[in-house]
């Protein structure tokens, strides 16, 4: 699971039927220090409560689609939680 910041929303009218009614969000993946890592991705929201500006964690691969009620949806990143608090022990990070 990776950390990410929700930076926007997506509206798509023509889409796969399994994606009907599903909230799509644009997420910038982050490293634990808050720096961006890689390009923004589109993720589905498994918490139903994530919105732009929020720090979230998401899961990729097959498990990404399992955050939704409907299975076998064509999804590769799913938001599983909103981060309330993040603690990083800087001394513990190996060099």
């Amino acid at each position, binding site marked *: *699971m990776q950390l990410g910041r929700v930076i926007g929303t997506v509206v798509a009218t023509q889409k796969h039927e399994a994606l009907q009614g599903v909230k799509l969000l644009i997420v910038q993946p982050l490293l634990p220090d808050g720096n961006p890592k890689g390009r923004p991705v589109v993720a589905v929201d*498994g918490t139903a409560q994530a919105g732009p500006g929020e720090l979230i964690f998401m899961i990729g691969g097959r498990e990404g689609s*399992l955050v939704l009620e409907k299975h076998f949806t064509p999804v590769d990143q799913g938001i599983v939680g909103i981060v309330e608090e993040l603690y990083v*022990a800087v001394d*513990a*990070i190996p060099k």
Partner: protein
Amino acid sequence: MFFGKVIGNVVSVIKHKDYYGLKLLLVQPVYPSGAPWQDPLICVDIVDAGIGETIIYLDEGNSARQLLGLEPDGPVRPVIVAVVDEIRWRDDEGMLHHRVPPHEQ
């Protein structure tokens, strides 16, 4: 399964129902020597690991769901399954190494 080092924790209130009651830790994947290997990731912890400890985590969905007693649709994959006390390995040059990772930072 992979070696990792616990570098932090994550607190979340609003989350997917299958994550209720689970402990989430930030893990830096490492080589047996302790050098970092990949970008950090968030893992579910079921063995009471703590910050600074070297651990073994797995990144496989079906094993994770079985360990956590979830239905086949549980969206969980990375799970910490062991805290490492001692590592012995042979490197590419054939040298034997021995490392006892500290349990503190």
